[in-house]
């Protein structure tokens, strides 16, 4: 659990967050249209991007698992999806807070961006129950990988479909970055990097904890203890 690489990753994440928060609150200008409320976007958008990328990465790890049969890829896939779900909760909560302040509603059902993210989130929320409903570890890994690949392919398709949608009131950040002043774009990129580092750090800790628990179980069995 206490490897030098994990410590270095943790320290760089904390530093990146300190820099990111300093830029958000002391460097990036107040946006003319939304005012101070726009500061939520430096948190909400990187969270959403990292969560969606995490789902796709989980699918890629699942492909590696099915190709090689190596259980470590399955564990990586599970951890990436598990962490993306936690980030997804953050996306929904911070998005709702922004929507309440900006639109006067916590949730708007006819907005494709919101509903599509909720569909992706709920789809992945079924991953763990499906996985742990199967007792045989090999079958569990195989079924979970098939699910992760199918759902992982759905994520970019869903994203493209929403981008093509004609009616939306949800602001667009990606694709409109050329309109952002350089100070805002720089702050956004630093925030995105900090969020990606946080994701990598938490995934590494979760992986290390899971490996330790598996090792402990194996050792207990080897020594004849329960």
């Amino acid at each position, binding site marked *: 659990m206490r490897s030098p690489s994990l410590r270095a990753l943790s320290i760089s994440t904390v530093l990146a967050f300190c820099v990111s928060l300093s830029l958000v609150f002391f460097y990036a*200008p107040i946006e003319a249209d939304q005012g101070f409320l726009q500061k939520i976007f430096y948190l909400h958008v990187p969270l959403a991007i990292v969560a969606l990328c995490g789902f796709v990465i989980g699918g890629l790890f699942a492909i590696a698992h099915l190709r090689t049969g190596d259980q470590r890829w399955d564990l990586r896939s599970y951890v990436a999806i598990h962490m993306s779900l936690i980030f997804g909760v*953050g996306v929904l*909560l*911070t998005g709702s*807070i922004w929507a309440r302040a900006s639109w006067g509603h916590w949730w708007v059902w006819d907005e494709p961006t919101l509903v599509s993210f909720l569909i992706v989130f709920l789809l992945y929320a079924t991953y763990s129950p499906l996985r742990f409903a199967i007792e045989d570890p090999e079958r569990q890994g195989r079924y979970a990988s098939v699910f992760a690949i199918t759902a992982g392919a759905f994520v970019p398709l869903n994203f493209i479909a929403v981008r093509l949608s004609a009616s939306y009131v949800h602001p667009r950040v990606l694709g409109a970055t050329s309109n952002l002043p350089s100070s805002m774009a720089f702050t956004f990129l630093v925030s995105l990097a900090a969020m990606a580092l946080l994701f990598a750090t938490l995934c590494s800790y979760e992986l290390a904890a899971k490996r330790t628990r598996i090792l*402990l179980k194996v050792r207990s069995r080897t*020594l004849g203890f329960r």
Partner: protein
Amino acid sequence: MTMTPLVYALQGASTLPSNDGYVAAAYIVFFALVLIYVVIMAVRLGRVERRLQDLQERREDESGEHEKRERELV
């Protein structure tokens, strides 16, 4: 008179309602989420450490009993 985008932005912002509370709430929710996760991880780690300690004690006990039995036999 030329004005920088920052000045425009600040002028526009001054006419907008203050939403400081919502921004603070969003950041607090995010850090609380991370904190809850870290606490859960710490509890789990504590459990693993206790199990590891238990395993080590039981192993020491067993090896102690084994040595005792060997001494009795000699």
